[in-house]
């Protein structure tokens, strides 16, 4: 396919999700990309090329964040889509949903500070060898917002070792100089982990919100474009390098 060939990316809508509009808009700032809302009660993925699960508070965060959304009809279709190698990105609550669905390892618990955090963070790209970070270089520092109450990533020791060995830790919280430092991690996440991918690297979740940093003139930065841009490149068939 050529660089601007038409592409359709699904944006999943659950009751209580509130960044579906932002995510839809962010995707459509890329030439040739059409975003399609996918309703949680549907099972039809409308033939989309890739899927983004946006952030918010699906089902009021009842029981545990993402726990109820996981059982919606659309999630079974998304699980099959991912099993067939389809690209799925989860942002914030979307990350929580992917974890509850068992598509990503670990758990997201209450922030260490017990407060909802809403601020810019610096993210260091730990691997460019994913379809979601191929437009980055390892070590790049990106400035993006977080806004969450349960973003404290945790995982059992055996899985943690496996994540490191298999290069599945995709982004970490760092300071502006790109170093891991006191105060850089907004939520107490284990090993400063902000985002991880699955073993086959086609499912990716992160707490920060790239969809709120796609237009420099509005947001003071456009670092979020790199995640969507990488995904779009991958959907258009570009080789994932590194």
């Amino acid at each position, binding site marked *: 396919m050529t660089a601007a060939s038409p592409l359709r990316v699904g944006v999943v809508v659950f009751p209580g999700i509130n960044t579906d509009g932002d995510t839809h808009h962010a995707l459509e700032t890329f030439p040739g990309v059409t975003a399609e809302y996918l309703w949680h009660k549907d099972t039809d993925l409308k033939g989309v090329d890739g899927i983004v699960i946006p952030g918010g508070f699906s089902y009021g965060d009842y029981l545990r964040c993402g726990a109820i959304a996981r*059982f919606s009809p659309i999630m079974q279709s998304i699980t099959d889509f991912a099993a067939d190698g389809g690209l799925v990105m989860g942002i914030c609550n979307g990350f929580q949903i992917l974890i509850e669905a068992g598509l990503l390892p670990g758990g997201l618990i209450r922030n260490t500070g017990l407060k909802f955090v809403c601020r810019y963070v610096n993210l260091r790209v730990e691997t460019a060898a994913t379809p979601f970070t191929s437009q980055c270089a390892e070590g790049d520092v990106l400035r993006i917002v977080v806004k969450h109450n349960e973003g404290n990533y*945790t995982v059992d020791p055996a899985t943690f070792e496996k994540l490191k060995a298999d290069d599945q830790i995709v982004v970490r919280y760092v300071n502006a100089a790109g170093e891991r430092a006191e105060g850089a991690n907004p939520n107490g996440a284990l090993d400063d982990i902000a985002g991880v991918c699955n073993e086959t690297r086609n499912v990716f979740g992160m707490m920060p919100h790239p969809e709120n940093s796609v237009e420099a003139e509005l947001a003071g930065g456009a670092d979020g474009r790199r995640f969507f841009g990488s995904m779009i490149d991958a959907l258009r068939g570009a080789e994932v390098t590194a």
Partner: protein
Amino acid sequence: MNVRVYVVPKQGILDPQGAAVERSLPNLGFEGVSGVRIGKIIDLTVDGAGSEEAARAQVDEMCRKLLSNPIIEDYTFEITEG
């Protein structure tokens, strides 16, 4: 049958709420308190399971699939005739 399910953070998993409560207790003069963990209790009634053994199996499956996240939480439950 009446069922009471207890869900608590797994040992070794940080419990930020428990830690905050633990830090607050000495301020009230309660010294020497440790191991504070905050979980939740879920009460439910199971009808039509047939036997207590069948109800037990059902509740165990509920706990694994929805009521707890086994990666970060442990669960126990008790069943009483209702």
